[in-house]
Structures are given as structure tokens and as C-alpha cells.
């Protein structure tokens, strides 16, 4: 089995690297048509024209575009993303500090989305053909119509402002300091044995994670429901019923096992979109992740950060896609024969 899967995964990886190269080129081109001058921006306002010219030469901005791209690319390959114009710090360290926060947020949100989606899909499948079906269906379309940032604002209004039950800014209560470590706060807090920090971080994650989780669950519900309906048309379900298996066993052992595959591949696509969706949720909850860094950079026209963060988003999405595809190959024997 492994022998048949590995070359497919390998091909997928090569593809990802190629995609990343094209993405980096596109990013470079889009951001170089900008009407701002990074050299002038990185100097104090008292700088003379000659200073700016010198800076332009130093930053390589006087070279032709293809050459600039190659220089940038070779720096990127050596993990050198340059310095932020606005923060005056290394872009790599800025991205390194914020990326774990965003990954933590995205993974927890995806778990919530998957749990809600699977439960919701089973409920929608259960009520099929009954009088409750139109209600469940309408409900899922309504859920589908509320994007994550509206949930975020809604939750802040209810749980933050009206009930004052949960915090809605940042990652920690102000009396705590970020523990040193991986940057994955929940993990670091546990590793340091600080349950108080863990609890504070956990409370801060509830609203952002549920905003994303609920927003991304209805699509999973609907796909699971329709693939369950498809699977139930198959002969082996009838056969299982003839063998006298209980409905619960048929659902869990036979139907769900097959119906989960399309759902899984949807979840892979969803996770990529969810990862981008964290951007606005982070801004709304003042959560110090990639999204907030990106929006700050956009407002300050901080090109090195925009390029690096854009690339970071792509790398994560490509990794997710590759993992999901590989998982799909492992789980679905039908795809192994090529």
C-alpha cells in the first residue's frame, strides 16, 4: 500500500513547490505595482532626495524587476524576509511570533467546525423525509449565510458586552505574561505547569474559535447529509439490513465510513478558507496572530511583511492540502490504482 501511495504524495509535494514559486512571483508583481516607495518610507522625513536615492540603490530598487525578484527569492530561500519598514524588526521573527497563534486558532476552530458539522449532518440526515426536514434545511441555509466575522461581532455583543461572561480581546488576561516556548499558548501553559494561564488563554479562545467553527460547519453538514443519502442507495446497505444489523450499526459501521470521504475532502478545502477567515476574526478580537499583522502591514503599506505573510498563508494552505490529499489516499482504497 505504501509503495503505491508514496509516489502520489511525492508528486503532490513537487506540485506544491511549483505552486509556491508561482505564488511568490505573483505576490512580488502585485506588490510592485504599488504607488509607494519603500526606500522613502524607511527613512526619516528629513531625508534628502540623495539619501532616498542611496537607499533605493541599497535596497536594490534601481535594478530591473526580474533581477529584483530573483534577489528577493534567493533571500526568501535563505529564510531572510528582510526588515519590516514600520516595526523596524526582522519580518521572520514577527511572522514566527504570530504564526503559531493563528495555527492554534485555526486548528481549534476546525475541530469545532468538524464536530458541529458531523453532528449537524447526522441530525439533518435523521430528519430527512419528516416534517422537520424543511426546518433543518432552512436552518442550515441561514447558518450558511452568516460569515465568521458576523458571528464574532454577535458573540461579542452577547457574551462579552451583555452577559460579560467571556473575554474578547487578546490571548491572555493582562496580569499574565506570555510563557516562553513554542508560541502555541495552550501547549506552553501546560508545559510550564501554569493552569491559571491555560485557563485564561482557553477562555480567550472560546469566542473566536466558535465564531469560526459555527461559520464553517453548515457546509460540512450539508455535504455529509447528501453523501449519507447517496450511500444509503447502495446495495450493501440493503444487504446489511437484510442481515439484521441494527440501524445504528449500519449508520456508523457501514454508511458513515463511506460517506465521510467526500466530507473529509470538503473539510480540507474548508480548512484552507478557514485559515484565511482567521484574518478578520483576529482583527475583531485583537488576537495577536498573522491576520492582525497583515492588516497592520496593509494599513502601513509595509511591503516586506505583506509579502512574507502572504507567503506564510500559502505555505500553510499547501501543507494542509497535501496532508488532506495524502490522508484521502490512505483512507480511500479506490484511488490507489492508477
Amino acid at each position, binding site marked *: 500500500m505504501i509503495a503505491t501511495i508514496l509516489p502520489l504524495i511525492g508528486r503532490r509535494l513537487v*506540485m506544491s513547490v511549483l*505552486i*509556491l514559486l*508561482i*505564488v511568490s512571483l*505573483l*505576490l512580488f508583481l*502585485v*506588490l510592485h*505595482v*504599488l*504607488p509607494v516607495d519603500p526606500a522613502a518610507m524607511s527613512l526619516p522625513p528629513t531625508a534628502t532626495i540623495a539619501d532616498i536615492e542611496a537607499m533605493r540603490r541599497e535596497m536594490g530598487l534601481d535594478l530591473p524587476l526580474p533581477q529584483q525578484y530573483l534577489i528577493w527569492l534567493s533571500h526568501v530561500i535563505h529564510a531572510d524576509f528582510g526588515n519590516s519598514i514600520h516595526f523596524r524588526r526582522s519580518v521572520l521573527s514577527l511572522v514566527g511570533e504570530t504564526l503559531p497563534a493563528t495555527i492554534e486558532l485555526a486548528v481549534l476552530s476546525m475541530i469545532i467546525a468538524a464536530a458541529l458539522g458531523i453532528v449537524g449532518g447526522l441530525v439533518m440526515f435523521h430528519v*430527512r*423525509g419528516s416534517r422537520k*426536514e424543511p426546518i433543518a434545511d*432552512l436552518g442550515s*441555509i*441561514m447558518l*450558511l*449565510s*452568516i*460569515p465568521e*466575522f*458576523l458571528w464574532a*461581532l*454577535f458573540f*461579542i*455583543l452577547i457574551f462579552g*458586552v*451583555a452577559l460579560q461572561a467571556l473575554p474578547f480581546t487578546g490571548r491572555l488576561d493582562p496580569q499574565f505574561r506570555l510563557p516562553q516556548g513554542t508560541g502555541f499558548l495552550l501547549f506552553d501553559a501546560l508545559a510550564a505547569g501554569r493552569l491559571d494561564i491555560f485557563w485564561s488563554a482557553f477562555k480567550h479562545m472560546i469566542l473566536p474559535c466558535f465564531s469560526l467553527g459555527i461559520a464553517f460547519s453548515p457546509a460540512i453538514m450539508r455535504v455529509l447529509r*447528501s453523501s449519507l*443519502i447517496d450511500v444509503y*442507495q447502495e446495495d450493501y446497505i440493503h444487504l446489511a439490513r437484510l442481515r439484521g444489523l441494527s440501524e445504528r450499526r449500519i449508520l456508523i459501521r457501514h454508511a458513515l465510513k463511506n460517506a465521510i470521504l467526500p466530507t473529509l475532502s470538503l473539510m480540507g*478545502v474548508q480548512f*484552507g*478558507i478557514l*485559515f*484565511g*477567515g482567521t*484574518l*478578520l476574526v483576529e*482583527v*475583531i478580537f485583537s488576537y495577536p496572530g498573522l491576520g492582525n499583522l*497583515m*492588516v497592520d502591514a*496593509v*494599513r502601513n*503599506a509595509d511591503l516586506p511583511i*505583506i509579502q512574507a*505573510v*502572504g507567503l506564510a*498563508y*500559502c505555505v500553510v*494552505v*499547501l501543507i494542509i*492540502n497535501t496532508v488532506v490529499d495524502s490522508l484521502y489516499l490512505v483512507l480511500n482504497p479506490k484511488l490507489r490504482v492508477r
Partner: protein
Amino acid sequence: MMRRWPAWLRSGRVLIGLTVVSAILFCAIFAPVLAPHDPNEQNLISTFVPPIWAKGGDVAYLLGTDSLGRDVLSRLIYGARVAMLVAVFASLGAMAIGAVLAYIAGYFGGRTDAVIGRAVDVWMSFPPVVLSLILMVGLGVGLRNVVLAIILVDWTRFCRVMRSEVLVVARKDYVAAARLLGFSHWRTIVREIVPASLPLLITLISLEMGIAVIVEAILSFVGMSVSAETPAWGQMIADARQYIYDSPWGLIIPILAIFLAVFGFNILGDGLRRTLDVRLTETQRA
């Protein structure tokens, strides 16, 4: 009378969707007539007036006023203009690019298909929100650029879905028959394949309009959409968020507007999908 209406007009979902969307469209078109105030007129004496049903409401400001004393109802009505303009033009533009590429890829197959498929892969490796933000940085703010950014991000949605549809249709016998009769490629696509995939295309446009409304709201929320003088729903939310304790209604009202618009497009799309798609099985139709 009802009998003679086409099936899609008898679907409850389509009717609900059409009603909601037409109501918003009506507001957008007749905004200058409907809005009781100038949306940008500030009245610094009466800021944070609550809506009429809350304590302290004022008949002059049915939905209250914001932090600068601007009439929320008028801003909401004018905001519908941006939302609808973006919804219509961005979805049509995205459809034009995505569908044309999908027809070419699905019909010709082979290397053409592979190239277009790779282009879609590259695009899909960018989360849509991030890509649209980066494009807005490159293009600069303004209504035309918002539409352009959404088109450049979302053509892949059409391309991906339509391509697999075209692949199925292009293998049908009647398409082969058309080719044997000596139809040109162009004529085969336009006369045989496009009509067969039209239901899906219409459904996708409706869903894309909802997505465009959301993306515009996101961009205007972070201040990267239309310029600040043009009222937009996302902008109203961003303003109101700073005064969440002073006036929660200022936040709730534009949230509801966005929800209603997206819900209208989604339920319309869902209704159209069910009534127009002949290949859906009976169980899914139920």
C-alpha cells in the same frame, strides 16, 4: 394561473430569495428617494440616538444615529448601493472569466485543461480573504477596484465547478452528434454545451452574489474597500464596533442587513439549484 408558471417560480425558496433580493435592490436603486436624510450629514448634537423602539428613540431617526449623529437608516439604504453594485458586477465578472475558462478546459481537455487546472490550483492556495486584501493593496481603494479584486479572486469558484459539469456534458452523445454534423467547436459549445450547463451557472451566480456581499463587507470593515465618504455596511460595522457599549444597535442593524442580503442570495441559489438541475435525484430534491 399558478399552473402556467414555470417550476422555478413556484418554489418557495426562490420566491423568498427573490423577494428579499428585490427589496434590497429597490432600496439601492431608489436610495435618494427613500433615505430620510443625507447619509453623510452629521448632527453632533444628537449622536447615538437609539432606534425608535428603544427608550429615547426619535421619530426623525427611525434606526437611530451613529457616533457622528449620522442617520443609520439612510446610511443603511445607501450602503445597499455598494453591496448590490459589487454583488452584481463582481459575480458577473467572475462568471465571465471562470465560465469561459471552464468551457475551454472541459471541452478541449488535455493540455489546455491541465494548464487551466494548474492556474486554479495556484489561486486556490491563497485564502480568498488574504488574496483580496493583497489585491486591494495593489489596486488601491474604490468601488471599481473592489469589483475587480473580487473578480480576480472568485473566478476559480466558477471555473472549478463548471469544468466538471462541462466534462460530463461534453461526453454526451448529442454533443458528438453535433460535431459529426460539422458544427464548429465554437458553435458546439455555444449551442449545445452552454444551454445544458446554464442551470448550474445561474445557481452559481446567485451564490456568488452572496459571497461578494460578504467580501465587500470584510474589505470595507478593514478600510480597504470604497472610500470613506461612500456609506458601506462593513464600514458602519467598523465604526459601530468602537462604540459597542454606547450603542449596540449601531452594530446589530448593519449585521442584520448583511445577513439578510446573503440569506436572500443563498436561498435563491438553493431554490434555483433544486428546481433547475434536472440531474438531481428525487431524494435530494425532497
